[in-house]
């Protein structure tokens, strides 16, 4: 079956039957902090899946080609390359440690045999080239097979080296390092549709880079107030439009999104569009501001919509309508009454991401207890699924989960108080063309596929 929901195939989260495909990562109960996955991203073709972790490592999985002799492994993702992208650093001038945690990975569109991706920690962005080597030259004149230099005087004949096949070796090498451009913590990077530039955003500023130039960047958004005492909001996420290379959006901690057009001025402090939904005064609480802070913003593949994630909901916005979202989906509304506890244990600051399906017909985001939620925009149905080892039999269907919000708990339901808030799914990714999803649950990466797939 072709991709996501084309033709007569049902599309979206609920009409699909999600099945367990694979899980990557250690089974240990004891999770090393460095192994916690901090970002997940498919490349443009979906053949490669990259994860970054708190230890600064990047692991890339590659999808196996269809192989008649091993039909079951079709579509499986296996480790392709692992490398240490960032190391912990220390800023001596400010006596600050710079975490090596990979905040974001973004792939570049493939232009030749090699693959390129951008990975960033709090301060530095790196462009990595991942290339394969499956041939080796043999028969050098000036050195032996084991590399030792030959004595030139002993050489009596010349030969032409020949290429011989070797075991596939995947090399990752840093090609560019974009450093020292951010005073605050980088939260987003986004590659432009022109494939030449990209933006990086920290709490107060957004910079525009050229992929070839590392020694300078253009500052295109600066919301730092002259007097820091007047700071009221920070930038939480930013993304380029998928098709219009002059347009990008950035979200704020106040729950607003600004769309900027780089053609209008060099410094895009004035937005072209301002998206904000008026707050419902009846739901005001101490934590209203925190839960309205947007943790992620993603354009739809079509470029017509964008989606924002705040603490309790996902909202879909039509770029042509600034006054309110066109869709609002509650992710875990039952947490609204628990905000104080969630504030105490810091969970309220968790930054959930969200993603679109390839056809934009469904959206997905994570929750607690290793639950993740899918919303089908066409059928308006939603489902809660769980990423757990218990449901990890090969090709086993995932059973919808339900959280009981009060009153009598039915069988198979889980009560709000039993939720494990340490098991949070912050990072998810959807294959760009097919119904394959990658869900990061702490230190494990789950891959689910649609049954038909």
């Amino acid at each position, binding site marked *: 079956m072709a991709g996501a929901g084309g033709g007569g195939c049902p599309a979206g989260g609920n009409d699909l039957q999600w099945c367990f495909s694979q899980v990557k990562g250690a089974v240990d109960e004891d999770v090393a902090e460095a192994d916690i996955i901090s970002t997940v991203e498919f490349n443009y073709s979906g053949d490669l899946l990259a994860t970054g972790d708190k230890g600064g490592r990047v692991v890339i999985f590659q999808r196996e080609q269809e192989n008649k002799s091993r039909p079951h492994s079709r579509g499986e993702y296996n480790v392709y390359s692992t490398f240490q992208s960032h190391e912990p650093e220390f800023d001596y001038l*400010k006596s600050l440690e710079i975490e090596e945690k990979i905040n974001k990975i973004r792939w570049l569109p493939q232009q030749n045999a090699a693959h390129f991706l951008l990975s960033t920690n709090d301060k530095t962005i790196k462009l990595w080239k991942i290339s394969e080597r499956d041939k080796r030259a043999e028969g050098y004149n000036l050195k032996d097979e084991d590399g030792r230099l030959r004595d030139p005087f002993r050489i009596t004949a010349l030969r032409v080296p020949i290429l011989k096949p070797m075991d596939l070796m995947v090399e990752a090498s840093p090609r560019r390092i974009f450093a020292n451009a951010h*005073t605050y*913590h980088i*939260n987003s990077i986004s590659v432009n549709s022109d494939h030449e530039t990209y933006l990086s955003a920290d709490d107060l500023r957004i910079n525009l880079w050229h992929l070839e130039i590392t020694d300078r960047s253009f500052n295109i958004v600066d919301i730092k107030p002259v007097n820091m*005492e007047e700071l009221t909001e*920070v930038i939480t996420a930013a993304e380029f439009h998928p098709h219009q290379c002059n347009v990008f959006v950035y979200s704020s*901690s106040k729950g607003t999104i600004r769309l900027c057009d780089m053609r209008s001025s060099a410094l895009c402090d004035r937005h072209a569009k301002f998206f904000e939904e008026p707050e419902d005064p009846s739901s*005001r609480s*101490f934590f209203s501001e*925190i839960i309205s802070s947007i943790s992620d913003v993603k354009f739809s593949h079509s470029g017509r919509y964008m989606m924002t994630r705040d603490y309790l909901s996902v909202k879909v916005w039509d770029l042509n309508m600034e006054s309110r979202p066109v869709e609002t989906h509650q992710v875990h509304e039952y947490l609204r009454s628990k905000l104080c506890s969630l504030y105490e244990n810091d969970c309220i600051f968790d930054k959930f991401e969200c993603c679109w399906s390839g056809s934009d017909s469904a959206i997905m985001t994570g929750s607690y207890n290793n639950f993740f939620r899918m919303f089908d925009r066409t059928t308006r149905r939603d489902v809660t699924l769980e990423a757990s080892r218990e449901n990890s039999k090969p090709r086993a269907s995932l059973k919808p989960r339900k959280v009981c919000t009060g009153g009598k708990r039915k069988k198979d339901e889980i009560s709000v108080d039993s939720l494990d808030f340490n098991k949070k799914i912050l990072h998810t990714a959807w294959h760009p063309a097919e119904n394959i999803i990658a869900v990061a649950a702490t230190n494990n990466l789950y891959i689910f596929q649609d049954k038909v797939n």
Partner: protein
Amino acid sequence: MEFKLEAHRIVSISLGKIYNSRVQRGGIKLHKNLLVSLVLRSARQVYLSDPCPGLYLAGPAGSPAVPPPPPSPQQQQQQQPGEPAAGPPAGWGEPPPPPPAARAAWPEPEPQPQPQPERPAAPVTGAGDAPRGGEVEAAEAAWRRVEGAREAAEGGAAGPAGGSDGFPEGPRGARRQCGCPPGAEDRPGAPGACPRLACCAPRPAEDEPPAPPAVGPRKRGAAGVGGGPAGGPASGSSPLKKPRRNSEEQPGGAAAAAAEEEEMETGNVANLISIFGSSFSGLLRKSPGGGREEAEGEESGPEAAEPGQICCDKPVLRDINPWSTAIVAF
């Protein structure tokens, strides 16, 4: 009333978070601390919107020669023996809530920072002393009851950072008239304005009564920064700035002698609340003339930042003292 208890708790928790964030790996996270400061401010506003008139101490120490309003001396007898006659907690900068009659002159300070009205509040207070009537005394009575409880619990309650006794004199001192602006969008929690009477009713001794009466801050406030005027003009260079900003100047110095942790007396915590609660800037204390320094600091970036500074290259206080450093470390 539960709102106040919850507010109190939230303030304590928030302070703890702010304090702990300084030791977290990776530097201080601006976003999280901004959110925490917003919660802190909300909670503080709820807490301070206690509808008990007279439960305040007079205006900023900077306000020259504001005679302590009548309740103050009585309060002082209760709580701050040896309190300087100035009464008003230096660090507090929160002008006392005007008595009902004067409320008109107190346009909604809560919802938006409106520095202008707050400044005249001091004189208003003075003026407003007279109209205060029986309700004030009732409030004072309630106040004294609570004071008693607090003093009893004072003991070794020198709280841990953000400890539960986070609510010392400060908030009391700065408390406003209840239901102050009836229309006040008293933001969090409290639906509408609490009926004054209800609030004036015996305030249950808060589950964690703030420990020492804020002798600390007041004394220090008076002594530490060289009085209000020093702090006042500094941030008051722009007249539109909230007087509360004055409090930022003062407590910084006010907390001169306090060690950060064990001796984080509630008074200092109160100052911390006022600092943090008034605006995010509270977290980024600037020295007098900070505006300029800010610009300079910004240009020179990392070079100007002193060790232990935040990632926001905010120039650190020159007048280093442990407490200020702690605050400034933001």
